[in-house]
C-alpha cells in the first residue's frame, strides 16, 4: 500500500493532517535536540580563530569570541571572550562591551597552548629553550617549529613512561608483594625505576617563554604543555586534523582538572560495562520468570495478580530501586560478604560499599519488568499450532518449549533487552547510591587477577554530565563538555541498541514468527 497515492475521503482529511502533524512535530523536536547537542558538543573541539581586541581604554585582550548578549542596563551589547591565562589573570572569561572595542584583528602569530595546569594559554610564543640558559629572542617561525618538535618528542617520552609503568613496574611490584625477598625482581625494579627517572629528567628541563597579548611574560615548562596550535595561521585541513585529534583525546583520555577538562574514556567504559553486565544479569532471570508465568504456572487469578504486579514494578521511580539496592545489596549482601571473606581488610569495605556489581544488579532489578513483559508477549504471540505441532510429534512439554517455543521467542526476548538497555543506560539516580564515582581513574577491567573488578566504583557518562554541569568551578567551560558528553551518551545508547537490534534481526530471520500470507 502506498500511502502517498491514496486519496483520503473528505472526512478523514483533518485527522490525517493532525496525525501527520504530530509525527512531524515529534521528529522536528527530536532532530532539533540532536542537532543542538551535536553542534554544541562537537564545536567545542574546533580550533576556533583567536581575536586580538583593543579597547578604548588601551587594554589589549586576546581570546575566542563565544557569544553576544544585550547589555543589562543601557544600550549596546556585550560579548563574552574566552581568554585563557588563568595563571596571569585569575579568570578566563571576559565580558567586553562591544561599543568599547576599538580594533579587532586576527594576528597569525597568536598561539593557543593546552596545559596540564592552569588550562589554556592564549598569546605569543617568544622563545623555546633550556631552563638554565635564559631564552633569548629568536625568530618566531623557528621557535614555533622547535616547540612542535619538542611536544612530539615529549609525547613519545610520556607514552614510553606509561608503557614502563604498565608492563614492567606494576607486574614487578605485584611479584614483590607476593615474595618480598626475590632478589632479581628487586634489581629489575631498581633498574626500571632508574629508567623512569631518566625519562622524567629528559622530559623536564625545557621551557617556553610566552607573552600574553598585553605584554606580560611567563616561563612555561614544556612537559606541562599537552598541545599547541596557531588557529589563525592554520589551513582548513590542519584545523580538521586538530579537531579530530581533540575529539579523539576526549574519547580516549581520562578527565583532568576536576572533570572540567580532558576526556571521558573511563566514563564510556564504565557505562558500557555496567550496561552489558546488567543485560547479562537481567536476561536469564527475566526470561525464566516469563517462561514460568506463561508456560508453566497454572493460569488463573494468582498468575494475573503476579502479572499486574510485575507491570506495576516498571513504574516504580528509579531512585526507589537505588535505595533498595543500597539497603539490600550494598549493606546487606555486601556487608555480609565482607564479614565472611574480606574480614582482614575491615573496617575498609570491599563489597560493602557501592560498586560495579551492585549497580548492575540494581539496574537489572529495575529493568526486570521490561524483559518479563516483552518475553511474555513474545511467548503469547507464538501460534498455538506450533506448540501443538511439536506435541503431536511426541514431544514433551519441555521439549516443545526448548526446541520450538523458546527459539521462536528469542526476538521478543531481545526486544526486552533493547528496552532494558535503553532504560538502564540513561539511568543515573539509582547509581548515585550504589556505586558511581565522580572520579575513578582505574577502570574496572585490567590485567590484574581476577581482571574484572566487580567491587570497584566506576564512572558513568550520565553522572559525569551531572557532575560536570553542576559541581564544576567554571560553568562556562563546563557547558560545551556537558553537550559533548550528552552527545556521547546518546551515541553509546544508540550503539548498544543497534547491537541488540542487529542480533534481533538475525534471530528473527532464523526463528521468527512466520508472517501470515
Amino acid at each position, binding site marked *: 500500500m502506498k500511502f502517498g497515492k491514496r486519496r483520503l475521503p473528505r472526512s478523514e482529511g483533518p485527522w490525517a493532517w493532525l496525525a501527520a502533524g504530530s509525527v512531524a512535530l515529534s521528529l522536528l523536536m527530536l532532530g532539533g535536540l540532536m542537532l543542538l547537542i551535536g553542534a554544541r558538543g562537537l564545536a567545542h573541539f574546533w580550533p576556533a580563530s583567536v581575536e586580538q581586541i583593543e579597547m578604548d581604554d588601551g587594554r589589549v585582550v586576546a581570546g575566542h569570541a563565544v557569544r553576544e548578549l544585550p547589555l543589562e542596563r543601557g544600550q549596546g551589547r556585550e560579548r563574552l571572550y574566552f581568554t585563557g591565562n588563568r595563571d596571569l589573570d585569575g579568570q578566563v572569561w571576559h565580558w567586553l562591551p562591544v561599543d568599547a572595542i576599538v580594533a579587532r584583528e586576527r594576528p597569525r602569530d597568536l598561539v593557543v597552548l593546552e596545559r596540564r595546569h592552569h588550562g589554556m594559554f592564549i598569546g605569543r610564543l617568544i622563545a623555546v629553550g633550556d631552563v638554565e640558559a635564559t631564552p633569548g629572542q629568536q625568530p618566531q617561525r623557528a621557535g614555533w617549529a622547535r616547540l612542535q618538535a619538542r611536544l612530539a618528542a615529549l609525547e613519545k617520552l610520556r607514552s614510553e613512561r606509561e608503557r614502563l609503568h604498565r608492563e614492567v613496574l606494576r607486574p614487578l611490584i605485584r611479584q614483590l608483594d607476593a615474595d618480598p625477598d626475590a632478589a632479581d625482581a628487586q634489581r629489575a625494579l631498581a633498574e626500571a625505576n632508574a629508567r623512569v627517572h631518566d625519562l622524567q629528567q629528559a622530559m623536564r628541563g625545557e621551557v617556553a617563554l610566552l607573552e600574553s597579548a598585553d605584554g606580560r611574560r611567563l616561563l612555561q615548562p614544556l612537559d606541562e604543555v599537552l598541545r599547541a596550535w596557531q588557529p589563525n595561521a592554520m589551513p582548513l585541513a590542519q584545523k580538521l586534523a586538530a579537531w579530530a585529534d581533540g575529539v579523539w583525546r576526549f574519547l580516549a583520555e581520562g578527565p583532568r582538572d576536576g572533570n572540567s577538562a580532558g576526556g571521558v574514556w573511563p566514563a564510556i567504559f564504565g557505562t558500557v560495562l555496567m550496561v552489558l553486565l546488567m543485560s547479562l544479569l537481567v536476561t536469564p532471570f527475566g526470561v525464566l520468570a516469563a517462561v514460568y508465568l506463561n508456560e508453566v504456572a497454572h493460569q488463573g487469578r494468582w498468575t494475573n495478580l503476579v502479572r499486574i504486579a510485575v507491570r506495576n514494578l516498571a513504574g516504580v521511580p528509579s531512585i526507589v530501586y537505588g535505595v533498595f539496592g543500597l539497603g539490600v545489596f550494598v549493606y546487606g549482601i555486601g556487608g555480609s560478604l565482607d564479614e565472611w571473606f574480606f574480614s582482614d581488610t575491615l573496617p575498609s569495605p570491599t563489597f560493602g560499599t557501592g560498586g560495579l556489581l551492585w549497580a548492575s544488579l540494581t539496574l537489572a532489578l529495575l529493568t526486570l519488568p521490561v524483559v518479563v513483559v516483552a518475553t511474555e508477549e513474545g511467548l503469547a504471540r507464538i501460534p498455538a499450532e506450533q506448540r501443538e*505441532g511439536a506435541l503431536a510429534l511426541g514431544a514433551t512439554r519441555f521439549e516443545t518449549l526448548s526446541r520450538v517455543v523458546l527459539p521462536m521467542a528469542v526476538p521478543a526476548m531481545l526486544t526486552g533487552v533493547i528496552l532494558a538497555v535503553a532504560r538502564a543506560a540513561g539511568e543515573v539516580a539509582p547509581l548515585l547510591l550504589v556505586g558511581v564515582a565522580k572520579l575513578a581513574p582505574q577502570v574496572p577491567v585490567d590485567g590484574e587477577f581476577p581482571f574484572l573488578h566487580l567491587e570497584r566504583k566506576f564512572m558513568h557518562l550520565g553522572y559525569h554530565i551531572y557532575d560536570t554541569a553542576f559541581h564544576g568551578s567554571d560553568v562556562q567551560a563546563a557547558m560545551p563538555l556537558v553537550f559533548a558528553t550528552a552527545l556521547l551518551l546518546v551515541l553509546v545508547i544508540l550503539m548498544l541498541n543497534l547491537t541488540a537490534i542487529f542480533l534481533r534481526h538475525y534471530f528473527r530471520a532464523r526463528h521468527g514468527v512466520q508472517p501470515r500470507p
Partner: protein
Amino acid sequence: MTLPSRFRPASDSIIDFPAETSCFQIEGLGLAYGGKPALRGISLRVPRHRVTAFIGPSGCGKSTLLRALNRLHDLNEEVSHEGWVLLEGQDIHAPDVAVDELRRRVGMVFQVPNPFPMSIYENVAFGLRLQGGLTRRRMDDIVEWALHAAALWDEVKDRLRASAWSLSGGQQQRLVIARSLAVRPEVLLLDEPASALDPISTLKIEELIRSLKSQLTLILVTHNMQQAARVSDYTAFLQDGELVEYAPTDTLFTNPSLRRTENYITGRMA
C-alpha cells in the same frame, strides 16, 4: 478388556466393525469444556488402513473428537471427559500410558500448515531427534523416505537446508505430513488439512491421503463434503456433539438412513 454392553452401538444407523479390525474403539465418549458439553456418548470404531471422515456443521464437535484421539485436550485444564478411547485395545487414558508415546503413535496434521522455523530437513527430522539414537545415515534415509511418502521429495531434494517457510502453503502442508510420517505413526489425524489451500494443492493432498492408507490408518475431519466423498472409505456424521450416522461413504452420501443426515448432505441445513 470388556466393556459394558450399553456402549455397544445403539442404533442401526451406526456401522459396527469387529474389534480385531479396529484401530480406534471409542466407547461412550463424552467431553466438556468447563462443564459445557461438547461431545455426548460417542461410540464408534475406526477400521485399520482405511480413511475415515468426520463431517458435520461448524461446532458439531468433529475437531474436538479428533483431538480427543491423541489427548491434545490434556493441555487445556478446563476439559473433562468420560468414557473410553481404545487404541489397539488399550485405553489411551490409562495411567500407565505415556502421552508423548501415544502422540508419536497417533500423528496429527492441522488446518494451517505449521512447519517449524527450521530447515526442511530439520522439520522432518524433528520427531526423530526427539527419539534420539539414530545415526546420521539412518536419519538421512528416513527423512528421504518420509519426503517421498509425502510426495514432496522431487520438489525439495535440492534445497533440504532451505527454510521450511520458503515453501508454498501446499508444500508446507505436505512437509508437515512428511514430518508426521517420519516417526512411523499407526494413525494420522487430519484436521481440515486442505481448507487453507488452493484447489491444486488440495488435489495433491487428497491424492496423498488415498495413497497413504496402505501404510496407516487415516482419520479426516473436513467441512467439504465432496472431499469426504472423494477420499474416505467411511464417513461419520456428527451434529450437536452427537454421532448421528456412521456408514460406508458411498452409502452415507447416496442412501443415508436418517432424515437429519440427508438434510445436511443435500444442503437443506446449514
